[in-house]
């Protein structure tokens, strides 16, 4: 039983990170109907920038809390700028292009960002500076750390803030209107370009936050880390019904928990035939099974009929 609880906790932490990244995908998809394949790289840049900024501040003798906040602030700002730039360079000129065209520019940008990161930070794994104290808790036989609590709490608060932004503010209303029908929204005086740019910028800020969390949780970072993380987060967004904010959050958490439970129990289930290195398979098998029965995700609306 304690293993079960332990895996639920681990899954919840991992799932919160997935959810934050998935929000970046789902916001852009909800408004523009395109997969921002470069989002995973934005998360990666967020992590690596934090390593550089916070690491050098700590080395300069600054207090850890200040260094952490400065690192987070700088990386959020840089990622926001990156998201804005991505939209301007790779997506805005192609808004009326065939549907697959922005997909290829997104892939191109993802290759560019990955290799830029490799030039700047090198090929090796980097260690993330310890920003949070290592405190262990125990609950009913399951162990968890202050970092895990921090990740779940902060991502929960961020998501609540995002929902408030989307459903309570004027910008949020403009975003929802654009998602429904850009042409009509613009007739109602919504500046479509600003709304789309805002979706990219907010999504990237969430990505940067997620990047910092990944860094604190796993304590290492690498220029290729964005790819798999982005893939899983995108899977989470689709699982929840892409374009749906609450769906992305629940999809992320669900995916994290399923993965953790799967990794924990696959050995027992298959009599030791399949080991925990099959962990990555669960995300996709669950996705395929869910989509077989709910073709537009758990909470998604019916989508258009074009490929």
């Amino acid at each position, binding site marked *: 039983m304690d293993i079960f609880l332990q895996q639920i906790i681990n899954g919840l932490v991992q799932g919160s990170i997935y959810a934050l990244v998935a929000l970046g995908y789902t916001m852009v*998809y909800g408004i523009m109907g395109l*997969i921002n394949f470069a989002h995973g790289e934005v998360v990666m840049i967020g992590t690596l920038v934090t390593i550089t900024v916070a690491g050098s501040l700590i080395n300069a003798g600054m207090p850890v809390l200040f260094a952490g906040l400065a690192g987070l602030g700088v990386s959020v700002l840089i990622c926001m700028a990156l998201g804005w730039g991505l939209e301007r*360079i*790779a997506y805005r*000129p*192609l*808004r*009326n*292009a*065939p*549907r*697959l*065209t*922005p*997909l*290829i*520019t997104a*892939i*191109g*940008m*993802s*290759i*560019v960002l*990955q*290799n*830029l990161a*490799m*030039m700047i930070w090198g090929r090796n794994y980097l260690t993330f500076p310890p920003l949070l104290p290592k405190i262990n808790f125990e609950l009913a036989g399951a162990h968890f750390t202050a970092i895990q609590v921090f990740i779940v709490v902060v991502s929960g608060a961020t998501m609540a803030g995002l929902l408030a932004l989307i459903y309570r503010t004027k910008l949020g209303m403009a975003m929802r209107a654009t998602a429904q029908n*850009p*042409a009509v929204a613009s007739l109602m005086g919504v500046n479509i370009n600003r709304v789309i740019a805002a979706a990219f910028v907010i999504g990237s800020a969430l990505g940067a936050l997620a990047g910092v969390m990944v860094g604190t949780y796993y304590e290492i970072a690498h220029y290729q880390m964005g*790819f798999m993380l982005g*893939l899983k987060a*995108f*899977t989470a967004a*689709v699982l929840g019904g*892409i374009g749906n904010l609450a769906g992305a959050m629940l999809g992320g958490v669900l995916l994290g928990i399923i993965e953790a439970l799967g990794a924990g129990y696959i050995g027992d289930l298959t009599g*030791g*035939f*399949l*080991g925990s*290195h*099959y962990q*990555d*398979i669960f*995300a*996709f*098998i669950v*996705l*395929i099974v869910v*989509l*077989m029965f709910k*073709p*537009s*995700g758990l909470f998604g609306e019916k*989508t*258009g*009929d*074009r*490929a």
Partner: protein
Amino acid sequence: MNKWFNPRSAFGVTLIAVALLGLPFVAAMGGQAWVRILDFAILYVFLALGLNIVVGYAGLLDLGYIAFYAVGAYTWALLASPHFGLHLPIWVILPIGAALACIAGVLLGSPTLKLRGDYLAIVTLGFGEIVRIFMNNLNAPVNITNGPQGITLIDPVAFGDFKFSGNTQLFGLTLSGPMKYYYLLVALAILVVIINLRLQNSRIGRAWQAIREDEIAAKAVGINTRNIKLLAFAMGASFGGIAGGVFAAMQGFVSPESFSLMESIMILAMVVLGGMGHIPGVILGAVLLSILPEALRYGVGPIQMALFGKMMVDPESLRMLVFGLALVLVMRFKPAGLWPSPERKRELGEKQAEGKA
């Protein structure tokens, strides 16, 4: 006028034939490495045309195409290598590989084809990853794929005693291994071009295009959309399987590394960048995107040396950086691809005149 013969197209065909025949000899002057690059360019043409059936004709976004290629490659590797001690001839393996890939395509397709657009994309992507993860891990408890180390010492393509590896003397010319594979691949590519051309204007091809443009309308005029979509998947997959078999034989080595998601994405990029659904465009896209990174490999380092006198940045990452930028720029200025089909170009013009949809 005879449909099959007019002097102008006959001249063009002859010119292309001579160029295709002579190309490996020209490339060989730069070393056998360039012939190998040519081989891969043709292999990618083959793959891109296979994917073109799925994405270009039927409009189904498939991000896991490489899985079928992997199935074909591993089929060849397992049936013609010392790994299981099997050395079956090409006549047996290639059809088995194509059939297995075809079955994989139907297996993936049948439960998922009711999905639309991007949902299908992510499911195919997931399928590709699942296949790769299995290939990476099926070395225990029973060693089937030999895990991340891959399978080595795979038999080359051979027709009877004629082997495609090593040098052969023919009509006083020395043909190296890569050169022989080149001619084999060109023959296969011509075959797939002909199949693509014939499909394009067939009943099936028109049904695919109808589904691509409007699935509901296609259903309404009596097209069995599910079967026709499955057929697109199965055909694309079998081409992938055949290409995979030739790849395994040519390399003599397969490992899961060759079948990453990035490969699927690259093949898709070839199709889209060249001009979806348009055969010459797809060929152009495949040739350009497979040769560009190699050309950059030889170009980037020396240019840096000439400009700055030393290596400023790692040439490997600079090469990929330029490649990524090229993808972005081409799509930015040619949104329908480098060489789109005339109809598509026209549609796009109309759409832009209409303004935002």
